[in-house]
């Protein structure tokens, strides 16, 4: 049965410590690596960027998988060379959003488009069986969704995935990293963005040209803000008023 070997690629980026700003393995990508380890199979860690970045070697400490580096000097579009390297993998895992860099969360979607693969984001858990991956997906308000997807597939891991990556110094010193040949032709990345120093963002507000009378009228109505007031009745009637409110807004099922 083991003639079919699950091949998993984990895409990793360079994160940054939120306090010191020092380069470090990205927390989200470490979760992806840990989830890949849990799923089993043959693992490859892949990074596109500067091969001389010392923080990259830390990824070796979190799994026994080989680390491959696509040298990408400058700022070219990393999607075409990554897609070329990712041919033949059954599962491609990555974090939902990088800590450093662009942090747009678009990479898994761009890769999925380029490779023609399905993508599931916000994954918390993963199980592979019979050419399918079963994914538990994070949704807000305490909801979880289960999805199966046919392999090969791309999965982006949610930051709240209940996983603990474990550091091993032995793995770090004995691990192998390979620098792949630089991609021959690269497309330039989008140049539409300009950077400026960070500051508090300005909230977009509608400009309002109002007369003094209109402002006064608005001030009067804001005083009356407040919902329905129920003062009369027995406790039972009041309890029923609450249930009626909840039911009319479809907030309870009974």
């Amino acid at each position, binding site marked *: 049965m083991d003639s079919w070997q699950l091949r998993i690629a984990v895409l990793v980026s360079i994160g940054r410590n939120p306090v010191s700003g020092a380069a470090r393995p990205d927390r989200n990508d470490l979760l992806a690596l840990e989830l890949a380890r849990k799923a089993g199979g043959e693992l490859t860690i892949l990074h596109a960027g500067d091969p001389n970045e010392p923080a990259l070697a830390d990824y070796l400490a979190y799994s026994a998988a080989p680390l491959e580096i696509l040298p990408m000097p400058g700022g070219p579009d990393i999607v075409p060379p990554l897609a070329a390297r990712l041919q033949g993998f059954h599962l491609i895992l990555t974090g939902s959003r990088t800590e450093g860099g662009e942090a747009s969360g678009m990479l898994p979607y761009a890769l999925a488009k380029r490779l023609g693969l399905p993508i599931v984001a916000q994954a918390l858990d993963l199980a592979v069986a019979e050419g399918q991956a079963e994914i538990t997906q994070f949704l807000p308000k305490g909801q979880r969704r289960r999805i199966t997807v046919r392999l090969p597939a791309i999965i982006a891991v949610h930051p709240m995935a209940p996983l603990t990556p474990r550091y091993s110094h032995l793995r770090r010193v004995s691990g192998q990293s390979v620098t792949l040949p630089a991609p021959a032709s690269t497309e330039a990345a989008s140049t539409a963005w300009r950077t400026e120093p960070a500051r508090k963002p300005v909230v977009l507000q509608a400009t309002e040209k109002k007369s003094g009378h209109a402002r006064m009228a608005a001030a009067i109505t804001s005083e009356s803000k407040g919902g329905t007031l129920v003062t009369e009745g027995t*406790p039972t009637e009041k309890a029923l008023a609450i249930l009626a409110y909840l039911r009319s807004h479809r907030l309870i099922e009974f």
Partner: protein
Amino acid sequence: MSGTRRINPRRPFRITPEGIRRIVLGEEGDAGEIALSPVAMASSKPLRLVGEATANLLVVAHSDRGALDAPAREAIAAAAILADPATPVLVLVLGDLAEDLGPFGADRILAVPECGNGAFLPDLEVSVLSDVIDRFQPRHVLMPDSPTGTGDLGRRAAAALDAEIATHVVELKTDSVACNRQGGTVLARRGLPRFILLDPGAIDAALPFRGAGKRLDYAAHAVAPGLYRDLGLKPVAGAALPLEEADFIVAAGNGVRDVPTVEAVADLFGAAIGASRVAVDDGRFPKDKQVGATGKTVQASVYMAIGISGAVQHLQGIRACRHVIAINSDASAPIARRADLTIVADAQAVMQALVSETARRNWPGDAADEARADG
């Protein structure tokens, strides 16, 4: 008669909830109290859209139980602010829609109940979105970058259509968008791309005008089953959830002494339990249940405040809650101004009534259980 202009002291007035008589400025006549509800004020806002429609701005959002959440309303407001007077704001709602989006700034509304509603149908949603983009040719598509599925759909659609996209937009201007980069140390700016995914809080949703709120008909084409299969939702029990993630919170304050009854009420609704600072300081609830400035900020759909007067610090923690229900013995407590429904009563009696009423009543779902018990 002298030429002095005199002000009629019996001009139209209204009584505020505090019982203070307020003259309504701008109203003439000799009338008594007049009704001036917030709804009346809202409908008196002018229409934003004038003249012939030339282009479109599209807003896409998933609905939750027939209503849109705050990030979705912010996206609609953003489109309404960006749009010039001849550009309608077209809103594509994925899921049921039971509320009027006109006051939020929507001019034309397409509701597609075949999508959304908790189901995972990325292929269908992308096909609906590209069809709507094809048909209405919007200049920009604005979406909330929310984990309910809208952020996912925006990225999928932008990749599928090979369109320019800005995600996690923290600042929107009429000509540019800005996002945080390098862990928030750098702000990256560019001109408005086709797809704009807005982070929550980037827009002030209060508008001085309203949208036309006209519903359009739309029938989604069926899409062949894709590579995904949805096995359904699996809710986590409310009590096991962290407060920040809970959808229904029953919170107790100084007016509640009986903790087991609070737990029974929370159990009734599958809700998480919260508490005000006073109740936590008294040792009735652990510190991790505290809601407010020094505790947790919550985003529940329903927040039931039992015996909580509503100090500013507490109201700050529940700002994002959609429905607030207060049970309080004091009708003039600040929570009454925030709450959508205020029950003025002794909290203990109402809580017990809630528990006993729900247990006594024959709710439709219980019929099967009873039949089983009888048989």
